């Protein structure tokens, strides 16, 4: 459980400090997996299958997210010629 917590925070922090969008995506993944881990632990603790099921869902969803995310990043890269997230700030106010 603690490990999960640590992972989660790590992901969060790296999310804050990273500017490269790819890495941001990665750190989100890390956080998600941390959550998944937490579920596993919980389910083993209660001896229920639900946790594992949940983890499956998480994996699937993470995969989907990554795919869509990468596609978007690719497009954005075509336009901005950079992966710097700060470049993608054309809407303000």
């Amino acid at each position, binding site marked *: 459980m603690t490990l999960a917590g640590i992972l989660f925070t790590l992901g*969060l922090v790296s*999310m*804050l400090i990273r*500017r490269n*969008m790819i890495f*941001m995506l990665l750190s989100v993944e890390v956080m998600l997996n941390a959550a998944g881990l937490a579920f596993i632990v919980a389910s083993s603790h209660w001896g229920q299958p639900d946790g594992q099921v949940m983890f499956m869902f998480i994996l699937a969803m993470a995969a989907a997210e990554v795919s869509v995310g990468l596609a978007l990043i690719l497009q954005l890269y075509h336009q901005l010629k950079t992966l710097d*997230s*700060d470049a*993608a*700030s*054309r*809407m*303000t*106010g």
Partner: protein
Amino acid sequence: MLWLIPALPFFSALILIVGGRSLSKAAVSVIACGSMGLAAAITLVLGWQFLQGGENAVAQHLWSWIQSGGFNAGIDLRLDALSLAFVFVITFVGFLIHVYSTGYMAEDADFSRFFACMNLFVGAMLMLVLADNLLLLYFGWEGVGLCSYLLIGFWYKDPANGYAARKAFIVTRVGDTAMAIALFMLFQHTGSLQIQTILSGAPELWSTGNETVVLIAFLLLGGAVGKSAQLPLQTWLPDAMAGPTPVSALIHAATMVTAGVYLIARTHVLFALAPTAQTAVAIVGAITLLLAGCSALVQTDIKRVLAYSTISQIGYMFLALGVGAWSAAIFHFVTHAFFKALLFMGAGAVIVAMHHEQDMFKMGGLRKQLPAVFWVFLIGSASLSAIPFITSGFYSKDQIVWLAWSSAQGHSAYWVIAIAGAFLTAMYTFRMVFLTFYGEPRGHHHPHTPGNSMMIPLYILAACSTLAGFVELPHTMGHFTLFSDFLQPVLPAVHLVQESAALEWTSQLLAAGLTFLGIYIAWVWVIKKPDGMLRFSQMPFMQWLRAYWFTGWAFDAAYNELFVHPFVRTARMNRKDIVDRIYTTLARIMQWCHDMLARTQSGLLRWYIMGVVIGAVLILSVLIWRVYV
């Protein structure tokens, strides 16, 4: 048919307002003077009946005006001796002045507007004196104020006239508010504004000197001093001379300014119950007559002299009222109406003759050019300065002088002041006469005698101001008391404490002597050795004094500093309405919040994430804090 008396002038005023511009001057004069003449005639008839029929009042209820809760005021007229005296003067003198005006205003473009206002005024004034309840009286009271405003500012092109007009209205309005409050109090305590109810009810309701009634009386006095240009609200009258001369004659000499006298006489019961207030009336009158006399002494404008003398004469009336000599006050009112109207119209004649020149120092020597005017003016002046035996002014004023001392509330100080006043009166009056009619012509005009329409009223008034005095003779001279008997049912007789004829003789002789002395000094001053007087008046102190008196004891300056300027300044300062600031600031704050927050919407992904995280941290910490603390 009582209602016709005020209705006629109102009606003709209405006609003139609506159709005045399309009527010819002749038609206008016929309508205006005709209505006045009719009213006067009706008054005579009614007066005759009144004197025949023994009952002491004729009342007429027209319709119920205001009916709200316990409050009830109708359009009720009531004619008794007191109001009859006033109505007579108003209609009769009014009629003469109207006739006179047809000549005086002949050249004016706004002929019909003038007569509309004049008629309106007469109507309102008649309402005032005929009203049976104080609210209706207040109606007339404000109505005459309006007309006075309109007529003072009649020549509106000159802003100064407009200023004088507004000053008159506003200053009198100050007095009116006091009167209004008096009305509230009277209603609160007596549950009615019917004059008769109040007068009959007051003695049961209040013991003498009860502070409520004293307060009421003082407030009424406030109203009175406003209208009658007494201290401390006298400042508007001299400026009011900006109006055409007939206006000054009718409104600011004969009728309106005496409304205060009427009010106090009308509510004399209340004043009798409030000795302090009554003394105040006397003191106000006394002081006013002195101050005004002094100011009159140094004026250069002939009309301003007369204005100040009016103030001073009304001071006499107040003095009389203050010492409980009710009928004496009314008597002086009647005679004063005659001779002051006469004087004003004479002055008007002179002014017309001099092509609207009002400065006495530009006149002189008119005795030759305008003999007729000179004679009537002389009669008027004589009456004003109370030349013994032959003038009405003597009888009325002398009565006051004597009663100021001898009556119950009288006091020797009053007497002294009154005597001094008589002296001053004689002095300034004849200074005026000499300056105007004697000596060498100083102006380079070629005066022409005015037409009959102006002269005939003068002759009539001259006759009146001589004869009117003989309706009331002092004890020392056959004790003939027609007038006071006539007023008896309304106004109680004066209580005398000194009955000694010797004292009265001395008083009268002294007064007469001082009068002649005054005339003599005036003669010396103006004709015998003017240069000597000049040198005398060149002394620094005298110069200061002259300037001081000339401005009417600098009351105007004081009021400007005290009231006018502060009001105007703050008004100017606050033109933008400080309260609005609150809301504009509020709006600005909102805008500021918007700008601040808009900054946070930077479009930077990292920043947004940071936002989320900060939120998360906040929420979690709050939660955990709530648990562990």
